[in-house]
């Protein structure tokens, strides 16, 4: 019993700090806004869940949203498809991320975080649209001293996606 307590205690010590969480969330947005999609899977642990869904699905606890990647391999496949298979009008994102609220996680060694976001999308022809607004619900862990998402659930306020979604949010 004593050993188990110590073990949990030692894992808790390894949880990311608030600064690390804030930096991870900011770096993630900046990386996508810079168009460096190749680096996107690196923000996640090997077995992480990345899920984009809508408020409607989230509230009803329906499992299918818009994107679901179980593990970094599926994220890498999305990156490859982006470069090689998918066709779309080129565009870029600009994330505006709100203050991060950090809380306790169910998993030992992880912290939970949530923040709001808005994304303005600029198309090839110069058109700018408010593409997405919503909430990020994150679980963040430390891996070799680096903070990574073990889960990032993106809940869009709207049920509706304009045109298509090929760059992750």
């Amino acid at each position, binding site marked *: 019993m004593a050993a188990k307590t110590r073990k949990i205690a030692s894992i808790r010590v390894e949880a990311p700090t608030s600064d690390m969480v804030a930096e991870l969330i900011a770096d993630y947005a900046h990386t996508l806004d810079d168009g460096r999609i190749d680096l996107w899977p690196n923000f996640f642990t090997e077995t992480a869940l990345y899920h*984009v*869904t*809508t408020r*409607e*699905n989230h509230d009803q606890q*329906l*499992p*299918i*949203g*818009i*994107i*679901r*990647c*179980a*593990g*970094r*391999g*599926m*994220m*890498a*496949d*999305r990156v*490859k*498809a982006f470069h*090689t*298979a*998918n*066709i*779309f*009008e080129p565009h870029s994102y600009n994330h505006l991320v709100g203050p991060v609220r950090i809380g306790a996680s169910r998993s030992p060694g992880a912290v939970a975080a949530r923040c709001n976001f808005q994304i303005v999308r600029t198309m090839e022809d110069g058109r700018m649209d408010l593409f997405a607004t919503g909430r990020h619900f994150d679980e963040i862990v430390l891996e070799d001293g680096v903070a990574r998402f073990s889960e990032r659930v993106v809940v869009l306020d709207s*049920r*509706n*996606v*304009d*045109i*298509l*979604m*090929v760059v992750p949010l």
Partner: protein
Amino acid sequence: MPSIAPVDLSPQQFQWPPEGVTRAPYRLFTDHEIYQLEQQRIFRGRSWSFLGLEVEIPNPGDCKTTSVGETPVIVTRDMERSIHAMVNRCAHKGALVCLKRRDNVANLACVYHAWNYELDGRLKSVAFRNGVRGQGGMPTDFDISRHRLQPLKVQIFCGMIFGTFAEDMEDVETYLGPDMSGFIKRNLGRPLRILGTHSQTIHNNWKLYAENLRDSYHATLLHTFYTTFKVNRLDMDGGILLSKHKWHHVSFARRAELTEASEYKDANVHSASYDSALEGPGLLQAWEEFDDGITHSIQTVFPNMCVQFTLNSLAIRFFAPRSVDKTELFWIYLGYISDTEEQSQMRIMQSNLTGAAGLVSLEDGCINEFVQRGTRADPQSSSFMEMGGRKVESEKNSRATETAVRGFWQGYRDIMGY
């Protein structure tokens, strides 16, 4: 010097090119008057529109809103569990009666002047009908039974709710014909469970999406993720079935008899260049659900819906025209009540293949817009659709054909009187 004949812009006088359904004049995608006429002749005419699923309104008092063409519609389940559909427009001033996508109510009340309707759309009460303190009120000959929400005729088929404005419309199964209704029974003829929904705004005329759904020629050329992972290729055994009136179709493929066709290697098509090793193979974990060997199918029902079965990913798509060049496309992902947890998980992972961010088909979100933008300046020109010949017939051995697109136009011409 070639002369161009003046274009008659009246939709009544609209002339189809002499080549018939192998051509579709671009004007059909941009003309506001034709668009209005479609609302009347197709969406409020002799067709069955998909309104939703029975499982969306399982309980007495449940209601949902949708639209038939541009017409807003309410679908309800009354206290005796019967399903009704009616135009979402108060019989008084025309305001929307229901605003929520889904709700549970005892009756339908218009918020503007508190006109109150039964769940079947009959008017129940009118606020201040007898005035206030003896003043005002409706005329003495006001007859509550002569006002109601405009009803649609409703029929349930395989858990789907269909509605029509044509009171004397044949039943849904006759409308579909035996081949089409048989295939829907195969896919939806068991209790269904909704796994998720979303919608997409596509910036094109609704008919470009209706064409796109029937266009088996483009499938493996534009959508190269599929081709690369051998989920669906034209060299698979497959074909197209058209309904009697040609406007509904089923396109299907079988995976078992996959062979590499040399055309893919020689034609240097985009699809051949992709690295085929998935790093997350869980995406395509699948099981064989049917013993007919069909692993992939897409089935349209004129005018506004389609059923997709991609490996184990079952979904209904339906669309609502929002304006002449804007369409909202809805996705309803489904499983069966009888699915095991493992089966559900496979359907969930395979949902990545389609939808607004579908690895296989997200291109459809922009490709029809590319046509809209490419054609709008030139309404008198036409598209050219002779792949697979000029006939409008089922094609059981090949999907390298535009026969189902021609079929759409044949049905469209018939119902529009063009």
